[in-house]
């Protein structure tokens, strides 16, 4: 009796350790590519990231030095336009789907969002080229922002919907029971309760589009010089990296690595800042 129990206990402990180890291995495997990419970028790019790289525009072919300042600022401009379009529309659509979306129309919206999510980014670029660039007659930061903004919508809409659906119904009832109108309840109670999840969705969408190159090829187009006007062709980091990486010059290759490093740093920085701000606004949950 006693020994049988001992053997069982041993087996149970062994299995327990086995699965803990397997789970730890799996998480290591997930992290490994991330660290590999970071490490390689640092190794290849860090040497070329200096003050001139961050503050100067590209030099003509053959001259050394110069930087990607115009592309960094241009990316910032395009991403700001994309966020201004994609975040409110995405969150709005998510609210509709979760709080009001029992109808057939909502089913269609949901399906369309999923399809939109699967549209290749180059197709998005061509579509915006036809819809915005041709009617306007020129490439622009605005058209690039539109292309990236549309790409943000489905991710944000579906995560917002799912996060709102996770808010227990009793919370909505509590608010309605206080005589708070439906729209106020949705914005100030339901959405607020789901804030951290919604922010995660927004950040996922932002990080994804920040590195997109294809939708910008025929929209923002790129620019070797300064341009801060949203209606002008504008440089963007991914475009600049692409152009430099396929060039035959070693100097440009080094700058492409540096650009990639800066791009990753900007994405990680933006995501971290938003997380810190969101965490600061939270009240203590511990008893």
């Amino acid at each position: 009796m006693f020994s049988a129990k001992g053997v069982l206990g041993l087996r149970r402990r062994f299995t327990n350790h086995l699965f803990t180890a397997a789970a730890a291995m799996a998480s290591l495997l997930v992290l490994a590519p991330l660290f590999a990419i970071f490490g390689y970028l640092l190794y290849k790019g860090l040497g070329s990231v200096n003050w001139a790289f961050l503050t100067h525009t590209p030099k003509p072919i053959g001259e050394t030095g110069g930087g990607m300042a115009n592309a960094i600022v241009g990316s910032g401009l395009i991403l700001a336009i994309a966020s201004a379009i994609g975040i409110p529309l995405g969150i709005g659509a998510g609210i509709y789907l979760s709080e009001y979306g029992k109808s057939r129309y909502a089913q269609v919206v949901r399906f369309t969002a999923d399809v939109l999510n699967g549209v290749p980014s180059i197709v998005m670029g061509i579509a915006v080229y036809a819809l915005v660039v041709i009617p306007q007659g020129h490439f622009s930061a605005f058209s690039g922002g539109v292309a990236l903004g549309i790409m943000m919508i489905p991710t944000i809409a579906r995560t917002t919907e799912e996060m709102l659906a996770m808010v227990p119904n009793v919370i909505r009832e509590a608010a309605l029971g206080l005589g708070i109108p439906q729209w106020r309840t949705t914005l100030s109670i339901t959405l607020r309760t789901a804030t951290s999840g919604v922010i995660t969705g927004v950040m996922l969408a932002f990080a994804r589009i920040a590195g997109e190159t294809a939708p910008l090829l025929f929209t923002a187009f790129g620019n070797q010089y300064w341009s801060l006007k949203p209606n002008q062709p504008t440089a963007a980091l991914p475009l600049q990296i692409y152009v430099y990486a396929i060039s035959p010059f070693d100097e440009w290759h080094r700058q492409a690595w540096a650009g990639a490093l800066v791009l990753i740093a900007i994405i990680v920085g933006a995501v971290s800042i938003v997380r810190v701000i969101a965490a600061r606004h939270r009240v203590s949950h511990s008893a």
Partner: protein
Amino acid sequence: MGVGIEVRDLNAWFGKAQVLQDIQMNVEPNHVTAVIGPSGCGKSTFVRCLNRMHETIAGARVQGKVQVGDIDVYGSGTAAVDVRRRIGMVFQKPNPFPTMSIYDNVAAGLKLNGYRNRKGLDVIVERSLRMAALWGEVKDVVKKKSGASLSGGQQQRLCIARALAVEPEVLLMDEPASALDPISTGKIEELIFQLKEQYTVVIVTHNMQQAARVADYTGFFLMGKLIEFDKTQKIFTTPSDKRTEDYITGRFG
């Protein structure tokens, strides 16, 4: 001050299923009225019809007349939000707003309805928490701790404070103690006893001892009908309907 409630020919449905049939009831102001009955008898639906919460569920429908003080609850010119502001509700499961501090939970009903006076809010929050017998336990952490960090019993008293902060005339309680331990339940019952000095209280309960302890009047519901409504003492000692007697003596339900 509390006001009376007059219910006439109240019918309610979920889709095609009728859950309340021809309910007539007069609720006395500044008294506690208990609504008892077996599960699924319509007692929760009944109180949710009093402040127009029933209609927030998809497919739910109401017919009939409910008069609360001077409010014709289902009158054509009456807005649901105005009704709910004047008829507070406490739910079965404590449901504080999880991302808000204790203070913001109590202030929510006023703030989100456009009340902007900060000093006034401080006064109302403290008074409401005192009335809900929670102030002493939380006064040092009202702005620091989330409502969700409190114990279950404290959360329910927080929800009562939140309902009282908007200064309703009637307080509806839908099994407010059924998720709580006996000590917390005792505290809530004591509270209900004090609340009737200022409010009219209608409480749904599946606990007959609780009804006997706190209520002045008791209504017994069965399969969507109000079988008997009388003074609590009468219902529990000499009920006039056989079905009421069977239920309170534990023969079914």
